[in-house]
């Protein structure tokens, strides 16, 4: 019988826990959410075992709460991320990340002949499929597949 192992990551009083981040994307998530620029107390763990993801990362940010549109920015690189909103050490709310209909300014268009790779333009994609993810560029109309997605 398998022993259930629990990782002890310090509990936070108020704030947000982001769980089920693919370990390889931890730092991208931190960057996209601007967590490397804020003063709040942050704890994170990475390369933790996950049945679903293989290796996962978890971030706990004290005294920070995210709007839906903010958190959905990580949907491309952490589509199965789960959020626990903590208030007074208790889980007050659970949220999941939802892939938005449009992705702006986060991903690169894979087409080298797309105008967005030649001039300073905020990329914009329509999400045409979610599993696996497929992004249609607003400009060149080509589809960037999940394995081709590169972050800006």
């Amino acid at each position, binding site marked *: 019988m398998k022993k259930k192992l629990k990782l002890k990551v310090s509990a936070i009083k108020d704030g947000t826990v982001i769980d089920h981040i693919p370990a390889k994307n931890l730092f991208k998530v931190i960057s996209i959410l601007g967590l490397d620029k804020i003063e709040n107390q942050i704890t994170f763990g990475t390369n933790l075992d996950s049945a679903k993801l293989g290796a996962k990362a978890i971030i706990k940010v004290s005294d920070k709460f995210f709007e839906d549109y903010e958190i959905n920015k990580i949907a491309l690189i952490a589509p199965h991320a789960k959020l626990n909103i903590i208030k007074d050490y208790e889980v007050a709310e659970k949220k999941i990340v939802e892939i938005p209909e449009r992705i702006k300014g986060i991903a690169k268009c894979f087409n080298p*002949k797309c105008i967005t790779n030649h001039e300073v333009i905020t990329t914009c994609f329509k999400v045409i499929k979610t599993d696996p993810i497929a992004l249609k560029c607003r400009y060149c109309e080509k589809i960037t597949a999940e394995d081709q997605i590169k972050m800006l």
Partner: protein
Amino acid sequence: MKKDLISITDFSKEEYLRIMELAADFEENPNQDLLKGKVVASLFFEPSTRTRLSFETAINRLGGRIVGFADPDSSSATKGETLHDTIKMVSNYADIIVMRHPLEGAARYAAEVSSVPVINAGDGANQHPTQTLLDLYSILKTQGTLDNLNLFMVGDLKFGRTVHSLLQAMSVFENPIFNFISPESLQMPRAYKHHLEERGIRYFEHEEFTDIISAADIIYMTRVQKERFSDPIEYEKVKDIYILNKAMLENTKPNVRVLHPLPRVNEIATDVDSSDKAYYFEQALNGVFTREAIISHVMNLK
């Protein structure tokens, strides 16, 4: 709010029909001074004699004046000016911009930057909507309808932007059937077949170019280019298969017409030119009337 034409899908079915209506009007009466006092910027960042002359003829027949350039060497792009800055400047001078650019998405971006309407005359391998509209007009003129047609598309269906676009446009009409004839490596891409499947539209794929064309209402020919093959031996094997000659038209329907976006190399034998069913040169002429219609519609001139 200004109107642009960047992709064929920007227009609704009603707008396609409106363009057909206007094109017929301009065919009957090509010289109408609707652009009098207006300046049209013709910006060809990539050379294109046929499309450019067609547009410039249309503009002239509408009484408009043209400014612009015909190739990138004579534009400020050589000084390193961004597309953004060029378009911002030109939209201050002109009332409408017609643009061809080698990069995909350039026209969409130009439309965002410009305060005046933008018509895409071709952006890289992406869209060429005015070609599609003139193809639609040609089909309507020769078949009397855009519904219930059997469309054969032959040649390079993988990279051919004209066939992709025509497929999208024709899929809004009633009950089309598509027949694709191409080498295996140049088949119609999955995304377009999916587009048809989603709409319950029937399509068939063939590798051989045979008398199945006897069922066709339209035969749309495209060129099979050597550069598109990763294996030159494969090209040698197929290069002569997708050629239409006059004898092949013997058992076809009387209403069938052969279309080609031009330039034609060897995929349509010259003996086809004398057939009643050859339509590719008239198709090019329809381009002038269709472009007059597009400019007119986009600028709300009539």
